[in-house]
């Protein structure tokens, strides 16, 4: 038998005390673990959102003399980017992305393969031409799009009724346009001088698209006599961590007459707010862990006072101060590990309850590293709470205990 085995026997025989003490640790650890699991899963959700929405650029002409009504939509007409500038912009973009990755020390194996083994498709440049016209007596913006690329850039686009346009004389309309103008699939709209068949109605997107009419880029350019011109380019990076901000800077520097804006900043700001909120919650929970430590400290001190006779006896039998400290720290470690494991189980369960309340559609991912963190936290908390009691016990005078033996 070794000292740790004596401690183990002590703990196993004093089950209720062990349960109380471990539970004190477990409650705080479970709170911390549930916050960490939820935050980690939530962070992944935020990264997914960033990957989906944040890693993109909007490129518009610099001298944008948009009309008041169009400004409200954040889009403009009147100035254009020549379609012929697209390859140059793409070139500058890709060079900037590669340079950005190199700065980060990542490996680039081939075009579209960034950051080591993960392969990403090349970026999607979806050009749009906006033209203002009157349809059914209302001011409407007609958007000319390259449907194939648009469906990648705006992957949330979906058809509520009908189908996407397939021919030059076909259009789709936004949900709110359809509602306000009572337009249905199969109707014919006068767009400029052309008669266009409505083949589909978009699902609501909570964006200006809901008020617009869309046709192919080529058709739009033809109808409004804007061949070779585009109003903006939506860029989707297609890789979650591409340095698109740097690409925007390079495009603005090297391509005259355009202004590229990264939407990453907004997503990053959201992520930072999330991280700060998480840090705040964690600090509250750490405070509760400290309170738990005080509770454990009290239980252990109480236990030491109740075991004065035993401690004196152990000293009389030859236990040194170091051995007594070790004995109590072994107890603390066992209690900490037990509390950590229980805390992990409780925390995991709690995160499955709290997570979905805080984040819609969150997928709670309980990684084994949280078990390691829980056990470490429990053990450290328990040991910290036990250091003073252990030292106190080691200094108990044998005579005090000897009198009571």
């Amino acid at each position: 038998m070794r000292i740790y085995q004596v401690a183990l026997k002590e703990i196993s025989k004093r089950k209720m005390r062990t349960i109380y003490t471990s539970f004190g640790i477990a409650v705080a650890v479970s709170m911390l673990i549930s916050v960490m699991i939820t935050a980690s899963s939530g962070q992944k959700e935020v990264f997914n959102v960033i990957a989906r929405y944040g890693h993109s650029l909007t490129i518009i002409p610099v001298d944008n003399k948009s009309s008041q009504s169009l400004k409200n939509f954040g889009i403009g007409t009147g100035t254009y980017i020549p379609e012929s500038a697209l390859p140059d912009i793409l070139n500058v973009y890709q060079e900037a992305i590669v340079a950005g990755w190199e700065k980060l020390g990542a490996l680039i194996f081939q075009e579209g393969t960034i950051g080591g083994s993960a392969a990403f498709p090349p970026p999607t440049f979806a050009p749009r031409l906006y033209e203002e016209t009157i349809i059914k007596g209302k001011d409407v913006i007609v958007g000319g799009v390259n449907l194939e690329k648009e469906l990648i850039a705006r992957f949330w686009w979906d058809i509520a009724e009908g189908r996407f346009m397939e021919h030059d004389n076909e259009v789709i309309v936004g949900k709110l346009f359809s509602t306000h103008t009572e337009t249905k699939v199969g109707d014919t709209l006068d767009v400029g001088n052309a008669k266009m068949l409505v083949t589909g109605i978009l699902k609501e997107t909570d964006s200006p698209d809901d008020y617009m009419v869309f046709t192919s880029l080529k058709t739009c350019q033809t109808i409004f006599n804007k061949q070779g011109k585009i109003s903006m380019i939506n860029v989707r990076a297609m890789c979650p961590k591409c340095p698109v901000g740097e690409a925007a800077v390079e495009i603005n520097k090297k391509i005259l007459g355009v202004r590229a804006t990264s939407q990453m900043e907004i997503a990053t700001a959201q992520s930072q707010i999330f991280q700060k909120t998480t840090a705040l919650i964690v600090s509250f929970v750490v405070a509760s862990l400290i309170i738990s430590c005080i509770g454990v400290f009290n239980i252990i001190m109480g236990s030491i006072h109740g075991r004065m006779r035993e401690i004196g006896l152990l000293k009389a039998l030859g236990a040194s101060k170091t051995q007594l400290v070790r004995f109590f720290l072994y107890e603390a470690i066992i209690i900490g590990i037990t509390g950590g494991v229980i805390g992990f189980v409780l925390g995991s369960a709690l995160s499955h309850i709290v997570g979905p309340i805080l984040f819609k559609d969150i997928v709670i991912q309980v990684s084994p590293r949280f078990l390691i963190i829980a056990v470490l936290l429990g053990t450290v908390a328990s040991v910290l709470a036990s250091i003073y009691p252990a030292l106190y016990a080691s200094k108990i005078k044998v005579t005090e205990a000897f009198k009571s033996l």
Partner: protein
Amino acid sequence: MIEIKDIWKIYQVGDQQIEALKAVNLKIEKGSFISIVGHSGSGKTTLLSILGGLTKPSKGSVHIDGIDVWTLNDRELSALRNQKIGFIFQFSSLIPTLCAIDNVSLPVIYGNRVMKNDRKKVYEYAEELLSTLGLTHKLTAFPSELSGGQQRRVAIARAFINKPAIIVADEPTGDLDMQSENDVMEFFSRINEEYQTTFLLVTHNLALARMTDKVHSMKDGMLISANNGGSPS
């Protein structure tokens, strides 16, 4: 050999100083079998705890085999208590969470002397001691499952596990019936003869004291007389 020189123990209780021991001098030769008798409060237990390295005297020195006990540091004093002295306390003194055989083996654990191969020998010796004291059937019993007398016998077995040179016993047969008391004294006598173990017994029981080789009397913190006892039988 144990040599106690001019030992004083003074307790401060409020404004009062209580002299528990006054200028006690005593020489105990190796292999002696002696007892100390006296009324309650005469200083018997205090003397025992000072020479056992448990209580520091206010003045004076205790030498065991030439070592000045109270100049040792904590680790050295712990080692001395563990390896040279076997304690039998006045009342039950078992660890409640350990079974009888583990309680007996406890001093070996704290003596850091259990090598992997020795562990079996330690348990074998603990079992032998418990068997000698009539507890063969109680090896794995916990203190709560033992009677007062059985607990006392486990504590006695524990005092012998490290084969100490000195046994310090405070009312060692307090909870035992007459037959068990005789058995224990016989056991002490055998160990004393076989290993030349020094025995120092504190007791109220004059009949028990007479079984030892020499009986010292204490009164008011002083050793007042020494008489030859009889041999334990």
